Structures are given as structure tokens and as C-alpha cells.
């Protein structure tokens, strides 16, 4: 399969592994930003292959993991309200809020639909004129353009029964927050290739300039990841903090201007709380004032009861890269994918779920 097989080629991967080992004259600590990258690294055992050479810290790039508890609780409340249908992505439905997940809300009689695309939520609103359809809009820069498009579509259709519960987040401000924390060990970043496909690689230049850390835009297949790691190690070894694009097959310097325009037409940057990380300045998006009629919080009000985070969950340390998931005392004991304490154990991109699925690569 084109664009996949060549990036999973075992011969190329082994050659890259050997090259990384020979280039690195000391151990380096890199952070892969995206949860998709974390899963791929663990699925193929790359973290184990590079033990002692490159320590990979898993970043917060899992949209459902960082969606604040308050938003989940509000989504749950809305789904249980008479005449409201709540739609979101499948992963989001399983994340525990402080009073249960959306799937549990459905079992309690809530109206909850899984959708693959925000436009499906618009279609639901058209098909169900008697219901208020609320789309729980989560995700990074990759998912904001389709949400923006859904708003455009709802607007042109004159839909009065469609709104958004917005929890969209931006990846670069989160990287800044992590780097500025006192205990940050990250020496270089593997930036999320698909985010850069939308935003462009050049937005990292000021970041690199300011923090003197290399950023390598990296894809998701084993060969992609190894190319990204090799490039980052080379930059570190030669003391050159630069932005390098190793995902040229889709990411461009300027990104996708059409998508960027669409997003900035509908949304504006705002400070946003991230689950586990606290409020990140400029870390999220909200609907512009002229699209307030699509804001579910304006339409229905906020959550009635404050959210409570499970105390024994150390997902904030995991999301900030302070601990590896299996260092959490609850990992695999009181916290499993069947009974998750926190979001990273749920999501198909969560670091804890990745460790639960693939860990043991060391001791098969």
C-alpha cells in the first residue's frame, strides 16, 4: 500500500536504528508530542530498541486526554437533558468524567451518538429537527477545520438546533508551558506531522529561537519516527536548535492556508484549561462572537456541579512527561482500560493505554 509500506520497511527501520545508535554519543531525551506517535513507537517496540540511547517522553498530544473534566461533565448533563442529543467522537464517549462517561450516560437514558466527523453531527441535526444536537468538539489543529466547516454548513442551512461544546486545543502553547516548567527534561521535540500539515512548520521557528530546542516535524510510521529521531539526535549532537521537516509528504512550511482561514473565520484563540496541565495561555479556541448562536454553553449554560478529579490518578504527571505511565501506582491495578481512572488510559492515543496495550515488550 503506497505511503505505508515504504514507511514500515523493516530493512530501512533497522538501518535507521543502527544509525541513531552510532550518531548518539550520549543519551538524549526527546518528547514525541502526539499520542498517535506514542502508540506507534510502542507498537513497534522502538522505545525498547533505543533504550539507553534515546529516552522518549510521551507528550500531551491526546485530545480526549486533555479535555477538561468540566466539559465532560457538562456534555454528560446535556445528554441527559430532555430534547438534547449529544454527538462526539467514539473515544470521547468512553472518557470518565467525575460522574461517569458519556457511554454510561447513554445507559442512564441520555441521548449520545458517536460520529466520525463533525459534518455527521450537522446531518443528525437536519434529520432530527425536534432535537437540539450538541457536537462535543474536541481535538487539536487537525480536527478544528472540520468543526469550522460544520459551523459554516449549519449556518448556511439556517439550523437552529445545532451547537458546539467547544474544547478545541492548540499544541504549540502546550509545548511552551511544558518547556517553561521547572522540571522539564526534554531536549528536543518530535512535532506532530499532521498538525503541521494544517498549521505549517514555520510556526515553530519562534519557539526554537526562544527556547533553543530542536523541533523535528515527524510522521507516524516506524520509518517516519526513526527518521525524525535520527534528525533530532543529529541536531542535538551538533548543537543546532532548528526546525526540520521530516514529514514532507504532507507537511509544508506554510501548512494549509484554506484550513487556517476557515478556522480563524469561525474561532479565536483563548486561554483554556487542559485536563492535567491547568490553564494554558492561548492554549485553546472559542467561537467568535458572531457565531455565539452555535455555542452550546451560551445556549444551555455551564455545568451545574463542579468537577472532581480522581485523586489517585497521576495523569497530570504523565501528560507533562514527568513520569512514564507504568510508574503510576494505579497503573494496571486500580486503573485499567476497563476501569480507567483517567483519560490517558482510555483513549486510543493515551500514553497509559499504549503502555497497557504494548508494554511487556521488554519481558514477553
Amino acid at each position, binding site marked *: *500500500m503506497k505511503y505505508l509500506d515504504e514507511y514500515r520497511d523493516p530493512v530501512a527501520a533497522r538501518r535507521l536504528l543502527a544509525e541513531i545508535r552510532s550518531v548518539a554519543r550520549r543519551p538524549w531525551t526527546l518528547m514525541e508530542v502526539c499520542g*498517535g506517535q506514542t502508540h506507534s513507537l510502542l507498537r513497534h517496540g*522502538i522505545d525498547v530498541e533505543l533504550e539507553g540511547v534515546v529516552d522518549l517522553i510521551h507528550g500531551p498530544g491526546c*485530545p480526549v486526554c486533555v479535555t477538561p473534566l468540566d466539559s465532560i461533565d457538562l456534555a454528560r448533563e446535556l445528554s441527559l437533558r430532555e430534547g438534547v442529543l449529544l454527538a462526539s467522537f467514539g473515544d*470521547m464517549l468512553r472518557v470518565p468524567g467525575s460522574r461517569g462517561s458519556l457511554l454510561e450516560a447513554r445507559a442512564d437514558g441520555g441521548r449520545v451518538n458517536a460520529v466520525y466527523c463533525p459534518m455527521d453531527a450537522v446531518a443528525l441535526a437536519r434529520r432530527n429537527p425536534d432535537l437540539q444536537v450538541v457536537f462535543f468538539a474536541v481535538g487539536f489543529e*487537525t480536527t478544528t477545520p472540520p468543526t469550522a466547516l460544520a459551523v459554516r454548513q449549519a449556518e448556511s442551512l439556517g439550523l437552529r438546533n445545532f451547537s458546539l461544546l467547544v474544547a478545541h486545543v492548540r499544541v504549540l502553547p502546550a509545548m511552551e508551558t511544558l518547556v517553561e516548567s521547572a522540571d522539564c527534561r526534554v531536549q528536543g521535540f518530535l512535532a506532530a506531522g499532521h498538525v503541521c500539515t494544517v498549521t505549517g512548520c514555520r510556526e515553530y521557528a519562534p519557539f526554537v529561537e526562544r527556547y533553543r530546542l530542536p523541533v523535528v516535524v515527524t510522521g507516524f510510521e516506524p520509518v517516519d519516527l526513526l527518521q525524525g529521531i535520527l534528525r533530532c539526535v543529529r541536531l542535538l549532537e551538533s548543537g543546532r536548535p532548528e526546525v526540520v521537516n521530516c514529514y514532507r509528504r504532507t507537511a509544508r512550511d506554510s501548512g494549509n492556508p484554506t484550513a487556517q482561514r476557515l478556522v480563524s473565520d469561525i474561532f479565536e484563540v483563548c486561554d483554556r484549561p487542559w485536563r492535567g496541565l491547568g490553564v494554558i495561555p492561548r492554549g485553546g479556541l472559542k467561537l467568535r462572537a458572531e457565531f455565539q448562536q452555535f455555542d452550546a454553553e451560551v445556549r444551555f449554560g455551564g455545568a451545574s456541579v463542579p468537577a472532581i478529579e480522581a485523586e489517585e490518578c497521576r495523569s497530570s504527571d504523565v501528560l507533562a512527561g514527568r513520569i512514564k505511565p507504568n510508574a503510576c501506582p494505579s497503573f494496571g491495578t486500580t486503573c485499567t482500560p*476497563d476501569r480507567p481512572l483517567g483519560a490517558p488510559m482510555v483513549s*486510543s492515543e493515551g500514553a497509559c493505554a499504549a503502555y497497557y496495550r504494548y508494554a511487556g*515488550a521488554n519481558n514477553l
Partner: protein
Amino acid sequence: MTHEELSYNCPSPSTTDSGRISLAHGEGGRLMRRLLSEHILPALADVAPAGDADAAILARLGGQVVFTTDSYVVSPLFFPGGDIGKLAVFGTTNDLAVTGARPLWLSLSLIIEEGFELALLDSVLRSLAASARLTGVSIVTGDTKVVPRGAADGLFINTAGVGVLLEPRWPGPEQLQCGDELLVTGPIGQHGTAVMATREQFDAEPCPTSDCASLVPAVDALRRAEIPVVTLRDATRGGVSAVLREWAASCGRTLAIDEREVPVTPEVRGVCELLGLDPLHVANEGTMVVAVRKGFGAAAVEALSRVPDARQAAIVGQVQERRVSPVVVQRGLGRYLPLDEPLGAQLPRIC
């Protein structure tokens, strides 16, 4: 045939003008008799020799009796490569076949939602009859219920199946030994992806086609070739991974497979890559996992290669000494990694 085409396809003379099932069709009166005599019995004529028997008196059998039941609630009712009728026959008879039995008799229970189109019912019944004919089973008893609109999703079917156990019996998964070879009888993940792609209207081009088929010919081929089968199982819900996991638990050993040897069609791979699914976890309806004694894998593949639905059978792994993980898979880079277990229904990744 698509849903669309069928809705324009005039049914055989309808019992009501609407061409739809009404609650009265399930209430035992004249309408019910007409539903049976004008729709159900004609469609099943040659595979339901006893007519509308409430209970069947069956012939004595020369061996132990094997009995199974399964309910079918697939949505949509029609999908590329099959429909709920075909599924209701093959699903149940395959359970008998992989248990080591020759399938003989089926019961058929229909639970129909009020308002269901008679033309669709006719189409399902025709497909069901054709599948029963192909498998050599008779439908010996049945039941029809109609529930109010909203109480079911169109049509649910239950079939129970009876078969006779054949000799020699297979040792079973508890007897798996190190070195035993693991095979699949065809490309995996086709049914799950076909149903999902249709239900969610992915418009995948080409769309995956369900492997929905009888496993009886494949099982027969293994018997005829006198392959020392240890155990075999249709890889339905949970896919190949669920079968391997159960077997590993039964025998206390580790089952190791090589991802690169597992046949997957480009269509299935495309859908799985898009949705972040592992074909090993996706349901099949006419593909099984077979374990044979060490050294007989190639002979088993040879025997299966003559069966139309098992032409792409392949050796995919073997039984090994127990490691920490019950099932391991060799991924692209050559390293064995634990095979994860999905919690429930697989959900797509979101970015």
C-alpha cells in the same frame, strides 16, 4: 442487491395493500397464516419439508448430538457479500462445523418490527433458503413474532442448530503443544469492515466484501486429507485475536503469529488503516483459525487450497513455550510484541 433496489422490487402478492408487516401479522389470525403461506413457506419450500411445524420430531442419529443457538441483529440487514438471512444460516452451521459436527437441522425464529417491508423479508428468506440448501441443512421448526415499531430494528433472527458429531474428534485447544502450527483459512477482517463501511456509508472504493460463507467445505477438506487438526474455530466477534487468546488460556502456552504472513485484502487494509483498527481484531464470518500438529501446516494449506472459500489459507504462526504474554505478534520490525485485546467494540481514532 442493495436496499434501494429492493424497495422498488415488487414483492409476491401482499397480504395487505401496504406491502409492510403489521402487528396483526404476528397475532396468530388470518393475516399470520397468509404471511406464512404466501411469504415464509414458499421461500423456504425445499429446505423446510415439514412446513410450519411448531415442534419437529427428528430422526435418530448415529452419533453424539451437537446443539447450538445464535441470534442475528446485524445492521444494516444487507451488506456487500451477504445479508442477515445468509448470516443466520452460516453463523449457526459454522458453529456446529467447527465443533466437529455435520450440521443437519435448524430452527428459525423471526422477530420483525412493525412496518418492515415484505419485499425485504422475502429477499432475506430467499437468501436464507439458498444458504441452507448450500449447507445441506433443513429448517425443521420456526416461529414468527411482530413487535411494535421502535421495539426492534427491522428484523432480528434467531437460529438454533443441531448436528451429529463426526469421528475422529479433534483433541481441542487444551491439547495444543509447542510447535503446533496455526493457520487462517483466508483473508481476515472482511466481514467487520464490510458491515462497518456500509453502515457508516464510507463509500470506500472498492468496498470490502464480507467473507460470510459456510465453513463446512473447508472442514471437510481437512478431514478428507486426514490432517491432524488439534482444534479449529471460526474467528467471528473479536476476530482472530479473540480465538488465539482463548486457545492460549486453554493450553497455558503462548501463541505467536507473524503479522506479515496473515492475509489481508487491500480493501480491508485500507479501511483498517483509515480507522486505526487492527484486522486481527475485526470479525470474520467465513474464515477460521486452525491449529494442526507440527509439520502438517503445509499439508493443511494444500488441502484447503482446493476449497473455493479457502484458497488463500496461510500458515501464520505456531504454539510456543509460555511467555508473559499469552499471544504475541511479530510486527514489521521483527520484534515480538504482545497482541493487545480490545475492550469492546472498536472505535476509530479521532486525529
